[in-house]
């Protein structure tokens, strides 16, 4: 499950221990155990935590962060970062609402155009990073500001209601008792898991994150891959924005403020390295679940919102710190990470 850019053979007892500690599935397993422990704690403290209604609620409110996290995982694996995802998410619903309410464009078509606008922003990010070679942090920080400003300009700062039953189905509807947005998120995880682990494109992304220069020398079209990855990130952020608008039945230029930090936290919690070349979508998915369940459980146990932020930050630090400790032990016992 956990891919790394480098791997090395080792022999003997200690290296075996090292390999086990490095264990490609261990990060995800650790995370899953953490998730289960959190669930047990909340189940013992909150009477209605382990109810079907609460699980459906968690599922319904998971999709936005989950979907954007897919794009962010890919971007981080290549050694980049995309700070603009929150602004891009706001843009998609603003564009759709303006076209629908002011230009009488059918809502479905308006939504598609909104998604295309976000995809184009992602493409521009990719172009500036891969071709013009501007630092990813600087590029996406700039687009973060430009796109948010654009959303305000287009909407004149106003919140617009989107009262269309078909549109609301995406964010609020259920199929066989499962929230539609959750099913969509799971489908996307399966698709991207396949891409990352069973296609040359996915393997190349790990190689690019491990060493862009070596990848270039090995004949990988680094620019093209980066262009695709940032374009995908823009598209997925736009899709998340549409889900937010569908859930709230409204579009607001201020929507998804701070989304980028939640998403990066989930992805890093899931074991993806900020320096690139390492990460997994399964880990990201568990990271998304952990953060969402934490929020849910803390609200249900009536913990003050100030402490909620403290707890979420502490869990992130503990999980990542524990993983770093494990990697150090790996080196000590002869493994290689």
């Amino acid at each position, binding site marked *: 499950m956990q891919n790394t850019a480098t791997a090395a053979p080792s022999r003997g007892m200690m290296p075996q221990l090292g390999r086990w500690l490095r264990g490609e599935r261990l990060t995800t397993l650790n995370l899953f155990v953490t998730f289960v422990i959190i669930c047990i704690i909340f189940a013992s403290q*909150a*009477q*209605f935590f382990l*109810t079907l*209604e*609460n699980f459906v*609620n968690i599922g*319904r*409110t998971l999709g936005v962060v989950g979907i954007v996290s897919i794009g962010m995982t890919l971007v981080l694996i290549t050694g980049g970062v995309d700070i603009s995802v929150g602004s891009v998410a706001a843009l998609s619903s603003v564009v759709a609402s303006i076209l629908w309410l002011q230009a009488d464009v059918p809502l479905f078509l308006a939504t598609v155009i909104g998604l295309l606008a976000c995809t184009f922003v992602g493409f521009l990010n990719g172009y500036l990073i891969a071709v013009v070679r501007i630092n990813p942090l600087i590029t996406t920080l700039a687009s973060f500001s430009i796109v948010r400003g654009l959303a*305000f300009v287009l909407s*004149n*700062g*106003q*919140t*617009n*209601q989107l*009262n269309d039953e078909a549109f609301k189905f995406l*964010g*609020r509807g259920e199929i066989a008792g499962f929230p539609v947005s959750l099913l969509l998120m799971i489908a996307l995880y399966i698709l991207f898991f396949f891409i990352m682990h069973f296609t040359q494109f996915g393997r190349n992304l790990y190689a690019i994150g491990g060493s862009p220069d070596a990848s270039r020398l090995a004949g990988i079209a680094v620019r093209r891959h980066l262009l695709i990855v940032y374009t995908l990130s823009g598209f997925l952020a736009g899709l998340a924005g549409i889900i*937010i608008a569908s*859930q*709230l*039945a*409204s579009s*607001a*230029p*201020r*929507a*998804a*403020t701070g989304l980028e930090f939640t998403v990066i936290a989930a992805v890093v919690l899931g074991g993806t390295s900020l320096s690139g070349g390492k990460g997994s979508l399964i880990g990201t998915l568990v990271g998304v679940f952990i953060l969402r369940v934490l*929020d*849910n459980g803390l*609200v*249900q146990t*009536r913990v*003050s*919102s*100030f402490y*909620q932020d403290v707890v979420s930050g502490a869990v992130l630090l503990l999980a990542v710190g524990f993983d770093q400790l494990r990697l150090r032990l790996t080196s000590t016992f002869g493994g290689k990470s």
Partner: protein
Amino acid sequence: MKFSRKLSLVFALVVMLLVPLFPMVKAQDCPTAQDEYVIGFANLTEDIVFTQLVREGILAAAEEAGNVEIVLADNRLDGATALANSDNFIAQGVDGVIHFQTDEAFGNVIMSRFRREGIPVIAIDIPMPGATFFGADNYNAGRLAGEALGEWVNENWDGEANAMLVLELPQSGPIPAARMQGMEEGFQETVETPVADDMIFRLDSKNTQEESFQVVSDTLPTIPDAEKIVAITINDGTALGVIAAAEAAGRAEQIMVVGQGADPSGQEAIVAENSRYLGATGYFPELYGFQIIPAMIDLLECRAVAPAIYVNHVFINQENVCELYAEAWPDFCAE
């Protein structure tokens, strides 16, 4: 002696006649009084509809006054920017300043500069030491909404609600807290059976519709038996998030919401069919200017002005929205 008594009487009469004229003489001598005025207005931000309406109202009121020119600036929700704008106003030689700035910590520094220059200041919504305050009467604005919700519960739910959701903004200090306190006390004192303390859920809305949606989504599963739920919210966006969460959970019929603001998005929810948004206390930002500009002219012409001027709040619901905003909702108001 007789003559001196007469003289004293004449003197006293002259003094009595002249005393009422003193204020007029003082007004004519008022050092800041002029025929034309240049007034600086630094808005809180230009990114929010509320503050855009404040700016438009001030410009309209200045035009109506006929002798006022407005110099605009944007404080961008930032104290340091507000300070820089203050220096610019002084450099431009404005006669008075209307400041809408968020950072209380910068109030002293900003006001010391204007005091040094003898420039009168009106502060909107966030007080500054030495400035005339203009803004919301937060506690009473909250009470209006709370009382309206209490009356609705008395009429429609036999005077009893099972749970209360309080969508607050704890990190933003005393102003939103006063609104929430007013709403909660207004409701609890009006409703026949107040909601028990353990059924009051205080949730941090973080001032966004999404956060409000999420925390209410997380709370509703903990009150599966509650069929009469009331929600008091810090603003329209937060109220819309509560309603969206209840709708998504299939429990819209079990909730009734009030809020603060009554901005266009709030009004749209109020006039909606089968609306669960009972109403919101109006702040009328578009009318701020029509109270502020005359007050500023009074200050400049050395007439007495109250140290705090409050907005006249009204609770806006389906019954009176057409009296105030008929043009905005022609279909609803035509019915």
